[in-house]
Protein backbone atom coordinates (compact mmCIF):
# COMPACT_ATOMS: atom_id res chain seq x y z
CA UNK A 1 0.00 0.00 0.00
CA UNK A 2 2.75 2.42 0.97
CA UNK A 3 4.63 1.78 -2.25
CA UNK A 4 1.46 2.53 -4.23
CA UNK A 5 1.12 5.89 -2.58
CA UNK A 6 4.80 6.63 -3.17
CA UNK A 7 4.51 5.72 -6.85
CA UNK A 8 1.42 7.77 -7.51
CA UNK A 9 2.16 10.62 -5.14
CA UNK A 10 -0.29 12.12 -2.71
CA UNK A 11 -3.67 12.33 -4.31
CA UNK A 12 -5.77 15.28 -3.34
CA UNK A 13 -6.97 16.93 -6.52
CA UNK A 14 -8.00 20.51 -6.01
CA UNK A 15 -11.45 20.01 -7.52
CA UNK A 16 -12.38 16.99 -5.42
CA UNK A 17 -15.93 17.50 -4.15
CA UNK A 18 -16.11 18.41 -0.48
CA UNK A 19 -18.21 15.36 0.33
CA UNK A 20 -15.69 12.90 -1.14
CA UNK A 21 -14.00 10.51 1.28
CA UNK A 22 -10.45 9.22 1.03
CA UNK A 23 -8.04 8.42 -0.41
CA UNK A 24 -6.73 7.97 3.13
CA UNK A 25 -8.60 6.04 5.80
CA UNK A 26 -12.12 7.12 6.69
CA UNK A 27 -14.61 5.66 9.20
CA UNK A 28 -16.84 3.15 7.40
CA UNK A 29 -19.99 1.77 9.02
CA UNK A 30 -20.58 -1.87 8.12
CA UNK A 31 -23.25 -4.28 9.32
CA UNK A 32 -21.99 -7.82 9.10
CA UNK A 33 -24.06 -10.79 10.26
CA UNK A 34 -26.37 -8.36 12.03
CA UNK A 35 -23.59 -6.70 14.03
CA UNK A 36 -22.70 -3.04 13.35
CA UNK A 37 -19.00 -2.13 13.04
CA UNK A 38 -17.16 1.14 12.51
CA UNK A 39 -13.86 0.50 10.73
CA UNK A 40 -11.22 2.90 9.45
CA UNK A 41 -10.80 1.99 5.78
CA UNK A 42 -9.40 3.53 2.62
CA UNK A 43 -12.12 3.66 -0.05
CA UNK A 44 -10.10 1.29 -2.27
CA UNK A 45 -10.38 -1.54 0.30
CA UNK A 46 -12.53 -4.40 -0.95
CA UNK A 47 -15.30 -5.87 1.16
CA UNK A 48 -13.26 -9.08 1.22
CA UNK A 49 -10.18 -7.39 2.69
CA UNK A 50 -12.34 -5.48 5.16
CA UNK A 51 -13.88 -8.75 6.37
CA UNK A 52 -10.64 -10.70 6.54
CA UNK A 53 -8.05 -8.11 7.57
CA UNK A 54 -10.10 -5.66 9.62
CA UNK A 55 -12.97 -7.67 11.11
CA UNK A 56 -11.13 -11.00 11.51
CA UNK A 57 -13.89 -12.81 9.61
CA UNK A 58 -11.58 -15.11 7.66
CA UNK A 59 -14.20 -17.61 6.53
CA UNK A 60 -14.58 -15.81 3.19
CA UNK A 61 -11.52 -16.73 1.14
CA UNK A 62 -9.37 -14.85 -1.37
CA UNK A 63 -8.73 -17.10 -4.35
CA UNK A 64 -8.28 -15.01 -7.48
CA UNK A 65 -9.13 -11.49 -6.26
CA UNK A 66 -10.53 -10.77 -9.74
CA UNK A 67 -14.04 -12.15 -9.71
CA UNK A 68 -13.27 -15.50 -11.28
CA UNK A 69 -13.29 -18.16 -8.56
CA UNK A 70 -16.20 -17.45 -6.19
CA UNK A 71 -14.26 -18.26 -2.98
CA UNK A 72 -15.19 -14.82 -1.59
CA UNK A 73 -18.96 -15.20 -2.12
CA UNK A 74 -21.00 -13.39 0.56
CA UNK A 75 -24.53 -11.98 0.66
CA UNK A 76 -25.16 -8.27 0.35
CA UNK A 77 -28.80 -7.50 1.11
CA UNK A 78 -29.48 -11.21 0.89
CA UNK A 79 -28.00 -11.86 -2.56
CA UNK A 80 -24.77 -13.69 -3.29
CA UNK A 81 -22.08 -11.35 -4.65
CA UNK A 82 -18.30 -11.36 -4.95
CA UNK A 83 -16.66 -9.58 -2.01
CA UNK A 84 -13.40 -9.13 -3.96
CA UNK A 85 -15.08 -6.90 -6.57
CA UNK A 86 -17.16 -4.99 -4.02
CA UNK A 87 -15.76 -1.94 -2.24
CA UNK A 88 -16.38 -2.09 1.50
CA UNK A 89 -17.32 1.58 1.60
CA UNK A 90 -20.07 0.93 -0.96
CA UNK A 91 -21.70 -1.47 1.54
CA UNK A 92 -22.60 1.18 4.10
CA UNK A 93 -26.28 0.88 4.90
CA UNK A 94 -26.48 -2.63 3.46
CA UNK A 95 -26.65 -6.00 5.20
CA UNK A 96 -23.58 -8.18 4.72
CA UNK A 97 -23.82 -11.89 5.56
CA UNK A 98 -20.79 -14.15 5.57
CA UNK A 99 -20.31 -17.88 6.13
CA UNK A 100 -19.86 -17.05 9.84
CA UNK A 101 -23.43 -15.72 9.87
CA UNK A 102 -25.48 -18.55 8.38
CA UNK A 103 -25.46 -20.96 11.32
CA UNK A 104 -27.75 -20.19 14.24
CA UNK A 105 -27.33 -20.92 17.94
CA UNK A 106 -24.22 -23.01 17.36
CA UNK A 107 -26.12 -25.32 14.99
CA UNK A 108 -24.75 -25.81 11.50
CA UNK A 109 -26.92 -24.62 8.61
CA UNK A 110 -28.54 -27.60 6.83
CA UNK A 111 -26.32 -26.95 3.81
CA UNK A 112 -23.22 -27.03 6.03
CA UNK A 113 -24.40 -30.33 7.52
CA UNK A 114 -25.01 -31.77 4.06
CA UNK A 115 -21.51 -30.74 2.93
CA UNK A 116 -20.04 -32.62 5.92
CA UNK A 117 -22.23 -35.68 5.31
CA UNK A 118 -21.32 -35.84 1.61
CA UNK A 119 -17.62 -35.01 2.02
CA UNK A 120 -18.22 -32.14 -0.39
CA UNK A 121 -14.70 -30.77 -0.16
CA UNK A 122 -11.08 -31.76 -0.22
CA UNK A 123 -8.76 -28.85 0.59
CA UNK A 124 -11.72 -26.76 1.74
CA UNK A 125 -10.53 -23.44 0.36
CA UNK A 126 -13.54 -22.89 -1.90
CA UNK A 127 -16.03 -24.38 0.57
CA UNK A 128 -17.38 -21.26 2.26
CA UNK A 129 -18.08 -19.68 -1.13
CA UNK A 130 -19.68 -22.92 -2.37
CA UNK A 131 -21.93 -23.07 0.69
CA UNK A 132 -23.02 -19.43 0.36
CA UNK A 133 -23.96 -19.98 -3.30
CA UNK A 134 -25.70 -23.24 -2.43
CA UNK A 135 -27.75 -21.62 0.36
CA UNK A 136 -28.94 -18.91 -2.05
CA UNK A 137 -29.64 -21.37 -4.86
CA UNK A 138 -31.79 -23.53 -2.57
CA UNK A 139 -33.67 -20.52 -1.20
CA UNK A 140 -34.33 -19.18 -4.71
CA UNK A 141 -35.70 -22.59 -5.68
CA UNK A 142 -34.72 -22.28 -9.36
CA UNK A 143 -32.85 -25.56 -9.59
CA UNK A 144 -34.40 -29.00 -9.53
CA UNK A 145 -32.05 -31.07 -11.70
CA UNK A 146 -28.30 -31.69 -11.33
CA UNK A 147 -27.76 -29.79 -14.60
CA UNK A 148 -29.54 -26.74 -13.24
CA UNK A 149 -27.55 -26.96 -10.02
CA UNK A 150 -24.30 -27.18 -12.00
CA UNK A 151 -25.25 -24.16 -14.12
CA UNK A 152 -26.23 -22.01 -11.14
CA UNK A 153 -23.12 -23.04 -9.17
CA UNK A 154 -20.72 -22.35 -12.06
CA UNK A 155 -19.45 -19.17 -10.41
CA UNK A 156 -17.76 -21.27 -7.73
CA UNK A 157 -14.64 -23.10 -8.86
CA UNK A 158 -13.31 -26.14 -6.96
CA UNK A 159 -9.79 -27.04 -8.09
CA UNK A 160 -9.98 -30.30 -6.15
CA UNK A 161 -12.99 -31.06 -8.36
CA UNK A 162 -15.28 -32.10 -5.53
CA UNK A 163 -18.21 -31.16 -7.77
CA UNK A 164 -20.09 -34.50 -7.67
CA UNK A 165 -20.18 -34.44 -3.87
CA UNK A 166 -21.07 -30.75 -3.79
CA UNK A 167 -24.02 -31.45 -6.09
CA UNK A 168 -25.01 -34.47 -3.99
CA UNK A 169 -25.06 -32.30 -0.85
CA UNK A 170 -27.20 -29.67 -2.56
CA UNK A 171 -29.52 -32.32 -4.01
CA UNK A 172 -30.06 -33.75 -0.53
CA UNK A 173 -31.07 -30.40 0.96
CA UNK A 174 -33.41 -29.66 -1.94
CA UNK A 175 -35.02 -33.10 -1.50
CA UNK A 176 -35.29 -32.68 2.28
CA UNK A 177 -36.90 -29.25 1.86
CA UNK A 178 -39.36 -30.64 -0.70
CA UNK A 179 -40.24 -33.51 1.63
CA UNK A 180 -40.85 -31.21 4.61
CA UNK A 181 -42.87 -28.83 2.41
CA UNK A 182 -45.02 -31.80 1.35
CA UNK A 183 -45.37 -32.81 4.99
CA UNK A 184 -46.54 -29.30 5.92
CA UNK A 185 -49.01 -29.22 3.05
CA UNK A 186 -50.45 -32.57 4.14
CA UNK A 187 -50.83 -31.50 7.76
CA UNK A 188 -52.39 -28.20 6.67
CA UNK A 189 -55.12 -29.99 4.70
CA UNK A 190 -55.61 -32.69 7.37
Amino acid at each position, binding site marked *: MDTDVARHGTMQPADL*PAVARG*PSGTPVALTVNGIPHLVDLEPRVSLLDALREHLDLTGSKKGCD*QGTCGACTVFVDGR*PVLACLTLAI*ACEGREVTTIEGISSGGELHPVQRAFVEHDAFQCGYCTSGQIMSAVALIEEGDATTDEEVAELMSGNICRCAAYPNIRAAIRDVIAANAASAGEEARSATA
Partner: protein
Amino acid sequence: MRPLSYVRATGVDTAIATVAAHPTSAFLAGGTTEIDLIRLGVTGPDLLVDINALPLADIEDRPGGGLRVGALARMTDVARDGRVVRDYPGMSQSLLLGASVQLRNMASIGGNLCQRVRCAYFRDGVSPCNKREPGTGCSALGGMNRGHAVLGTSEHCIATHPSDLAVALVALDAIVHIIGPDSTRTVSIDDFYLRPGNTPQAEHPLAHGELIAAIEVPPLPVARGSVYVKFRDRQSYEFALVSVFAALDVRDGQVAEARIALGGVASVPWRAREAEMALVGRPAGVESFASAADAELRAAVPREQNAFKIPLTRRAIVRVLRAALDRGQQ
Protein backbone atom coordinates in the same frame (compact mmCIF):
# COMPACT_ATOMS: atom_id res chain seq x y z
CA MET B 1 -4.65 -1.09 -6.15
CA ARG B 2 -3.95 2.62 -6.38
CA PRO B 3 -5.55 4.94 -3.85
CA LEU B 4 -8.83 6.62 -4.75
CA SER B 5 -11.56 8.73 -3.25
CA TYR B 6 -15.22 7.88 -3.06
CA VAL B 7 -18.51 9.67 -2.90
CA ARG B 8 -21.99 8.21 -2.83
CA ALA B 9 -24.26 10.22 -5.10
CA THR B 10 -27.71 11.06 -3.79
CA GLY B 11 -29.11 12.60 -6.97
CA VAL B 12 -28.69 12.01 -10.70
CA ASP B 13 -27.84 15.64 -11.41
CA THR B 14 -25.19 15.88 -8.71
CA ALA B 15 -23.66 12.56 -9.76
CA ILE B 16 -23.30 13.78 -13.32
CA ALA B 17 -22.06 17.24 -12.28
CA THR B 18 -19.45 15.65 -10.00
CA VAL B 19 -18.06 13.34 -12.68
CA ALA B 20 -18.22 16.04 -15.36
CA ALA B 21 -16.27 18.46 -13.14
CA HIS B 22 -13.54 15.95 -12.35
CA PRO B 23 -11.74 14.65 -15.46
CA THR B 24 -10.16 11.60 -13.79
CA SER B 25 -13.31 10.40 -12.03
CA ALA B 26 -15.67 7.59 -12.98
CA PHE B 27 -19.17 6.40 -12.15
CA LEU B 28 -19.34 3.26 -10.01
CA ALA B 29 -22.32 0.96 -10.59
CA GLY B 30 -21.97 -2.84 -10.21
CA GLY B 31 -18.20 -2.50 -10.35
CA THR B 32 -17.63 -5.98 -11.76
CA THR B 33 -15.46 -4.75 -14.62
CA GLU B 34 -14.46 -1.45 -13.11
CA ILE B 35 -12.94 -2.64 -9.82
CA ASP B 36 -11.25 -5.50 -11.68
CA LEU B 37 -9.58 -3.12 -14.17
CA ILE B 38 -8.57 -0.62 -11.49
CA ARG B 39 -6.93 -3.40 -9.50
CA LEU B 40 -5.16 -4.67 -12.63
CA GLY B 41 -3.84 -1.16 -13.22
CA VAL B 42 -5.55 -0.92 -16.63
CA THR B 43 -7.70 2.07 -15.67
CA GLY B 44 -6.97 4.56 -12.94
CA PRO B 45 -9.76 6.88 -11.80
CA ASP B 46 -8.86 8.75 -8.60
CA LEU B 47 -12.48 9.39 -7.68
CA LEU B 48 -15.40 6.96 -7.86
CA VAL B 49 -18.90 8.39 -7.81
CA ASP B 50 -21.16 5.59 -6.55
CA ILE B 51 -24.48 5.79 -8.38
CA ASN B 52 -26.06 2.66 -6.91
CA ALA B 53 -28.46 4.62 -4.70
CA LEU B 54 -29.93 6.55 -7.66
CA PRO B 55 -33.51 5.77 -8.76
CA LEU B 56 -32.56 4.26 -12.13
CA ALA B 57 -33.33 0.59 -11.51
CA ASP B 58 -36.98 0.27 -12.57
CA ILE B 59 -38.23 -1.77 -15.50
CA GLU B 60 -41.26 0.04 -16.90
CA ASP B 61 -43.82 -0.54 -19.64
CA ARG B 62 -43.65 2.01 -22.47
CA PRO B 63 -46.97 3.69 -23.34
CA GLY B 64 -46.94 2.35 -26.91
CA GLY B 65 -45.54 -1.06 -25.96
CA GLY B 66 -42.02 -2.17 -25.27
CA LEU B 67 -39.98 -1.71 -22.13
CA ARG B 68 -37.79 0.90 -20.55
CA VAL B 69 -35.09 -0.83 -18.53
CA GLY B 70 -33.37 1.39 -15.97
CA ALA B 71 -29.60 1.40 -16.30
CA LEU B 72 -29.14 0.30 -12.68
CA ALA B 73 -31.42 -2.73 -12.99
CA ARG B 74 -29.28 -5.81 -12.31
CA MET B 75 -28.76 -8.55 -14.88
CA THR B 76 -30.59 -11.03 -12.62
CA ASP B 77 -33.67 -8.83 -12.32
CA VAL B 78 -33.96 -8.12 -16.05
CA ALA B 79 -33.42 -11.77 -16.97
CA ARG B 80 -36.26 -12.81 -14.64
CA ASP B 81 -38.69 -10.02 -15.43
CA GLY B 82 -41.90 -11.65 -16.64
CA ARG B 83 -42.30 -9.20 -19.55
CA VAL B 84 -38.74 -9.81 -20.73
CA VAL B 85 -39.20 -13.59 -20.53
CA ARG B 86 -42.52 -13.41 -22.42
CA ASP B 87 -41.83 -10.76 -25.06
CA TYR B 88 -38.04 -11.00 -25.51
CA PRO B 89 -37.03 -14.53 -24.45
CA GLY B 90 -33.73 -14.31 -26.38
CA MET B 91 -32.82 -11.24 -24.34
CA SER B 92 -33.52 -13.08 -21.08
CA GLN B 93 -31.42 -16.03 -22.28
CA SER B 94 -28.55 -13.73 -23.27
CA LEU B 95 -28.46 -12.43 -19.69
CA LEU B 96 -28.69 -15.85 -18.06
CA LEU B 97 -25.90 -17.23 -20.24
CA GLY B 98 -23.56 -14.41 -19.22
CA ALA B 99 -21.17 -14.44 -16.24
CA SER B 100 -22.17 -16.24 -13.01
CA VAL B 101 -25.00 -15.86 -10.49
CA GLN B 102 -22.88 -13.61 -8.26
CA LEU B 103 -21.82 -11.35 -11.14
CA ARG B 104 -25.38 -11.17 -12.51
CA ASN B 105 -26.57 -10.05 -9.07
CA MET B 106 -23.99 -7.24 -9.07
CA ALA B 107 -23.73 -6.08 -12.67
CA SER B 108 -25.96 -3.28 -13.91
CA ILE B 109 -27.47 -3.10 -17.38
CA GLY B 110 -25.75 0.21 -18.16
CA GLY B 111 -22.43 -1.21 -17.05
CA ASN B 112 -23.00 -4.35 -19.09
CA LEU B 113 -23.24 -2.24 -22.24
CA CYS B 114 -20.02 -0.40 -21.32
CA GLN B 115 -17.93 -3.40 -20.29
CA ARG B 116 -14.41 -3.47 -21.65
CA VAL B 117 -12.88 -6.07 -23.93
CA ARG B 118 -11.38 -9.29 -22.55
CA CYS B 119 -8.31 -9.19 -24.83
CA ALA B 120 -5.38 -10.38 -22.67
CA TYR B 121 -3.10 -7.68 -24.11
CA PHE B 122 -5.56 -4.97 -23.11
CA ARG B 123 -5.97 -6.42 -19.64
CA ASP B 124 -2.30 -7.06 -18.83
CA GLY B 125 -1.65 -3.33 -18.52
CA VAL B 126 1.80 -3.49 -20.18
CA SER B 127 1.62 -4.92 -23.72
CA PRO B 128 1.32 -2.59 -26.70
CA CYS B 129 -2.44 -2.00 -27.13
CA ASN B 130 -4.08 0.70 -29.22
CA LYS B 131 -7.18 0.62 -27.07
CA ARG B 132 -5.32 1.23 -23.80
CA GLU B 133 -2.50 3.36 -25.21
CA PRO B 134 -3.33 4.65 -28.70
CA GLY B 135 -0.45 4.41 -31.14
CA THR B 136 1.43 1.61 -29.41
CA GLY B 137 0.19 -1.11 -31.78
CA CYS B 138 -2.01 -4.20 -31.50
CA SER B 139 -0.27 -7.15 -29.86
CA ALA B 140 -3.09 -9.53 -30.78
CA LEU B 141 -2.58 -9.11 -34.55
CA GLY B 142 0.51 -11.34 -34.52
CA GLY B 143 -0.03 -12.85 -31.08
CA MET B 144 -2.57 -14.97 -29.26
CA ASN B 145 -5.73 -14.26 -31.21
CA ARG B 146 -7.79 -17.45 -30.96
CA GLY B 147 -10.62 -15.63 -29.20
CA HIS B 148 -10.51 -12.51 -31.34
CA ALA B 149 -12.86 -11.05 -33.91
CA VAL B 150 -13.23 -11.85 -37.60
CA LEU B 151 -15.83 -9.16 -38.38
CA GLY B 152 -15.62 -5.39 -38.02
CA THR B 153 -11.93 -5.33 -37.13
CA SER B 154 -9.17 -2.97 -38.26
CA GLU B 155 -5.40 -3.22 -38.36
CA HIS B 156 -5.43 -1.34 -35.06
CA CYS B 157 -7.63 -3.65 -32.97
CA ILE B 158 -9.21 -7.09 -33.33
CA ALA B 159 -10.73 -7.51 -29.85
CA THR B 160 -14.28 -8.88 -29.60
CA HIS B 161 -17.01 -7.11 -27.68
CA PRO B 162 -17.80 -9.35 -24.69
CA SER B 163 -21.45 -8.51 -23.89
CA ASP B 164 -24.14 -11.13 -24.54
CA LEU B 165 -26.98 -8.77 -23.72
CA ALA B 166 -25.78 -6.23 -26.28
CA VAL B 167 -26.07 -8.87 -29.01
CA ALA B 168 -29.75 -9.25 -28.20
CA LEU B 169 -30.19 -5.48 -28.00
CA VAL B 170 -28.72 -4.77 -31.44
CA ALA B 171 -31.13 -7.29 -32.91
CA LEU B 172 -34.02 -5.64 -31.07
CA ASP B 173 -33.13 -2.08 -32.24
CA ALA B 174 -32.83 -0.88 -28.64
CA ILE B 175 -32.39 2.79 -27.84
CA VAL B 176 -29.90 4.09 -25.28
CA HIS B 177 -31.14 6.98 -23.13
CA ILE B 178 -28.28 9.21 -22.00
CA ILE B 179 -28.20 12.02 -19.44
CA GLY B 180 -25.39 14.57 -19.65
CA PRO B 181 -24.39 17.65 -17.67
CA ASP B 182 -26.41 19.96 -19.93
CA SER B 183 -28.89 17.82 -21.81
CA THR B 184 -30.37 14.42 -22.40
CA ARG B 185 -30.22 12.50 -25.66
CA THR B 186 -31.01 9.13 -27.17
CA VAL B 187 -28.73 7.04 -29.36
CA SER B 188 -29.79 3.97 -31.31
CA ILE B 189 -27.86 0.91 -30.21
CA ASP B 190 -26.38 0.67 -33.72
CA ASP B 191 -24.78 4.08 -33.26
CA PHE B 192 -23.76 3.36 -29.69
CA TYR B 193 -21.11 0.80 -30.58
CA LEU B 194 -18.17 2.16 -32.56
CA ARG B 195 -16.00 -0.12 -34.67
CA PRO B 196 -12.28 0.24 -33.91
CA GLY B 197 -11.24 1.76 -37.26
CA ASN B 198 -8.41 4.21 -36.62
CA THR B 199 -9.61 5.04 -33.10
CA PRO B 200 -9.97 1.78 -31.15
CA GLN B 201 -9.80 3.71 -27.87
CA ALA B 202 -13.27 5.13 -28.64
CA GLU B 203 -15.81 2.38 -27.97
CA HIS B 204 -19.01 4.40 -27.62
CA PRO B 205 -20.17 8.01 -27.98
CA LEU B 206 -20.50 8.77 -24.25
CA ALA B 207 -18.65 11.94 -23.27
CA HIS B 208 -17.02 12.13 -19.84
CA GLY B 209 -19.83 12.82 -17.39
CA GLU B 210 -22.58 11.37 -19.57
CA LEU B 211 -24.52 8.56 -17.94
CA ILE B 212 -26.73 5.87 -19.42
CA ALA B 213 -30.12 6.30 -17.74
CA ALA B 214 -32.08 3.52 -19.43
CA ILE B 215 -32.31 1.13 -22.36
CA GLU B 216 -35.53 1.26 -24.32
CA VAL B 217 -36.58 -1.95 -26.02
CA PRO B 218 -39.24 -1.26 -28.66
CA PRO B 219 -42.28 -3.48 -29.17
CA LEU B 220 -41.37 -6.23 -31.63
CA PRO B 221 -43.80 -9.14 -32.13
CA VAL B 222 -41.21 -11.34 -33.88
CA ALA B 223 -39.06 -11.22 -30.72
CA ARG B 224 -41.61 -13.39 -28.86
CA GLY B 225 -40.02 -16.36 -30.60
CA SER B 226 -36.43 -15.19 -30.18
CA VAL B 227 -33.59 -17.51 -29.19
CA TYR B 228 -30.05 -16.86 -27.94
CA VAL B 229 -27.44 -19.62 -28.03
CA LYS B 230 -23.82 -19.37 -26.91
CA PHE B 231 -21.02 -21.67 -28.08
CA ARG B 232 -17.95 -21.68 -25.84
CA ASP B 233 -14.98 -23.64 -24.53
CA ARG B 234 -16.67 -24.29 -21.18
CA GLN B 235 -20.33 -25.08 -20.74
CA SER B 236 -20.91 -22.25 -18.29
CA TYR B 237 -19.31 -19.06 -16.95
CA GLU B 238 -17.30 -18.37 -20.10
CA PHE B 239 -17.29 -15.82 -22.87
CA ALA B 240 -18.60 -16.84 -26.29
CA LEU B 241 -16.49 -18.17 -29.13
CA VAL B 242 -19.61 -17.34 -31.07
CA SER B 243 -23.14 -16.59 -29.97
CA VAL B 244 -26.25 -16.08 -32.05
CA PHE B 245 -29.50 -14.25 -31.38
CA ALA B 246 -32.23 -15.14 -33.86
CA ALA B 247 -35.94 -14.48 -34.34
CA LEU B 248 -37.99 -15.44 -37.39
CA ASP B 249 -41.43 -14.57 -38.66
CA VAL B 250 -42.40 -17.25 -41.15
CA ARG B 251 -45.58 -17.03 -43.26
CA ASP B 252 -46.60 -19.82 -45.62
CA GLY B 253 -43.14 -21.28 -45.36
CA GLN B 254 -41.43 -18.05 -46.40
CA VAL B 255 -39.36 -15.83 -44.13
CA ALA B 256 -41.26 -12.56 -43.67
CA GLU B 257 -38.96 -11.04 -41.10
CA ALA B 258 -35.60 -12.07 -39.61
CA ARG B 259 -33.61 -10.63 -36.74
CA ILE B 260 -30.10 -12.01 -36.38
CA ALA B 261 -27.13 -10.81 -34.36
CA LEU B 262 -23.76 -12.31 -33.50
CA GLY B 263 -21.50 -12.19 -30.45
CA GLY B 264 -17.95 -13.37 -29.88
CA VAL B 265 -16.87 -12.88 -33.48
CA ALA B 266 -16.96 -9.13 -34.03
CA SER B 267 -15.47 -5.93 -32.66
CA VAL B 268 -18.97 -4.77 -31.74
CA PRO B 269 -22.23 -6.61 -31.01
CA TRP B 270 -22.91 -7.57 -34.61
CA ARG B 271 -26.27 -7.12 -36.32
CA ALA B 272 -26.18 -9.62 -39.18
CA ARG B 273 -27.97 -7.46 -41.74
CA GLU B 274 -26.54 -9.26 -44.75
CA ALA B 275 -27.94 -12.53 -43.44
CA GLU B 276 -31.30 -10.94 -42.63
CA MET B 277 -31.58 -9.48 -46.14
CA ALA B 278 -30.59 -12.77 -47.72
CA LEU B 279 -33.32 -14.57 -45.81
CA VAL B 280 -36.37 -12.41 -46.32
CA GLY B 281 -38.65 -13.84 -48.98
CA ARG B 282 -36.81 -17.17 -49.04
CA PRO B 283 -38.18 -20.51 -47.87
CA ALA B 284 -37.53 -21.11 -44.18
CA GLY B 285 -35.12 -24.04 -44.26
CA VAL B 286 -31.56 -25.14 -43.82
CA GLU B 287 -30.49 -24.22 -47.37
CA SER B 288 -31.60 -20.61 -47.03
CA PHE B 289 -30.13 -20.44 -43.53
CA ALA B 290 -26.75 -21.62 -44.81
CA SER B 291 -26.65 -19.15 -47.68
CA ALA B 292 -27.70 -16.35 -45.32
CA ALA B 293 -24.78 -17.28 -43.06
CA ASP B 294 -22.44 -17.27 -46.05
CA ALA B 295 -23.67 -13.83 -47.04
CA GLU B 296 -22.84 -12.47 -43.61
CA LEU B 297 -19.44 -14.12 -43.38
CA ARG B 298 -18.22 -13.00 -46.80
CA ALA B 299 -16.59 -10.00 -45.11
CA ALA B 300 -14.90 -12.06 -42.38
CA VAL B 301 -11.13 -11.64 -41.99
CA PRO B 302 -9.45 -14.56 -40.21
CA ARG B 303 -6.19 -14.31 -38.25
CA GLU B 304 -3.67 -17.03 -37.56
CA GLN B 305 -5.50 -18.70 -34.67
CA ASN B 306 -9.15 -17.77 -35.14
CA ALA B 307 -9.98 -18.96 -38.67
CA PHE B 308 -12.03 -21.75 -37.08
CA LYS B 309 -14.58 -19.14 -36.04
CA ILE B 310 -15.81 -18.70 -39.61
CA PRO B 311 -17.10 -22.26 -40.19
CA LEU B 312 -18.16 -22.40 -36.52
CA THR B 313 -20.23 -19.23 -36.95
CA ARG B 314 -21.75 -20.55 -40.17
CA ARG B 315 -22.93 -23.71 -38.43
CA ALA B 316 -24.04 -21.77 -35.35
CA ILE B 317 -26.22 -19.44 -37.45
CA VAL B 318 -27.89 -22.39 -39.18
CA ARG B 319 -28.48 -24.21 -35.93
CA VAL B 320 -29.91 -21.21 -34.08
CA LEU B 321 -32.14 -20.24 -37.02
CA ARG B 322 -33.52 -23.79 -36.94
CA ALA B 323 -34.19 -23.36 -33.22
CA ALA B 324 -35.91 -20.02 -33.90
CA LEU B 325 -37.99 -21.66 -36.63
CA ASP B 326 -39.09 -24.43 -34.23
CA ARG B 327 -39.85 -21.92 -31.53
CA GLY B 328 -41.84 -19.70 -33.90
CA GLN B 329 -43.99 -22.66 -34.96
CA GLN B 330 -44.94 -23.59 -31.40
